[in-house]
């Protein structure tokens, strides 16, 4: 890698860092309870919960396991589970 003049950086390039490695607890979504309010997506600090084929799914590459989504889910459809690695 050659350095850029004035240390300029490309947009969105933190994606190469998979912060999922920080995680202890992993969010597990019960899609039957989900009412698709999208609050989990809105509040996620990692911007890593998205609708995939109509279901809200956390991207475990980046999810730090903070549990904000589980706390904010109005239907308690997300459970934080100790992750076995």
């Amino acid at each position, binding site marked *: *890698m050659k*350095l*850029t003049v004035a*240390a300029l*950086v*490309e*947009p*969105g*390039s*933190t*994606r*190469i*860092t*998979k*912060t999922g490695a*920080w*995680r202890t607890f992993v969010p597990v979504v019960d899609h039957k309870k989900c009412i698709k309010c*999208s609050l989990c*997506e*809105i*509040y*996620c*600090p*990692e*911007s*890593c919960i998205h609708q995939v084929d109509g279901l809200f799914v956390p*991207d475990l*590459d*980046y999810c*730090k*396991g*903070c*549990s*904000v989504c*589980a*706390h*904010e889910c109005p239907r308690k459809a997300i459970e*934080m589970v100790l992750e076995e690695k």
Partner: protein
Amino acid sequence: MQNLFAPGHRACAGCAMPTTVKLILDAAGPNTVVASPTGCLEVVSTPYPESAWEVAWIHSLFENAAAVASGVEAALKRFGKKDTNVLVIGGDGSTFDIGMGCISGMFDRGHNVKYICYDNEAYMNTGVQRSSSTPYFTHTTTTPAGKVSFGNPRPKKDMPAIAVAHRVPYVATASVAYPVDLRRKVKRALAIPGPAYIQVNAPCITGWTFEAGNTIELSRLVVETCLWPLYEYVDGKLGEVKKIRSKKPVEEYLKAQGRYRHLFRKEGGAEIIKQIQAMADANAVKYGLLD
């Protein structure tokens, strides 16, 4: 929801700041230039050669983001790019304290710059030291609670009032727990020509000491206790105010955070909590928060 703040950033798990930034950028859209001061946001989002920013972004120094944004706006104007949004997104230390002179100048010159402060009420990046945004009786590392101290001996500086005094046409407070309100306020600020100031409550897990998952809940609670009224000032007049349906006692908010632990353990703490309750009650009256 458009995502203009990429994952992979290094903010603490459960930090309110990335959510705040994501919501601001969702409202502003990609035709935006952001200037940020030194601080948590800058550090977690731009470790060279990486950046979480999907919009054009510049960081120069701790205290000059408002001046840098002034120059950005002037140059964009010069090049006929008046449609590009120019934002500052910075923390309370750079806003309330060290950047005050540059902010005053930017407001005074009437630049079309929207200054948004994510307010976590202390210098978190350097280890939770007091800023002039730190509320009364808060434990920080430079205003610690102790045998003869109940924490910060001074009230929180009224920064929105200072913005209003500069005749800033749009001034508002917001909370990360109220995303619809926050996005609407950013959009409204962008629609009104000239400077704007928006102060967003953004809890800090390590500085306030609470469980990571409670971030949003705490920012909701501070609003529901009337300690953080949500309001707008348009052209110097109090505009829309977020009404509180069932006002919660401040104790509920205070006891959820380590930075107020001393109020529940120390003799005389109950009296201090009463004083804080009185501040919340005064806010409710001043801004007409209750029906």
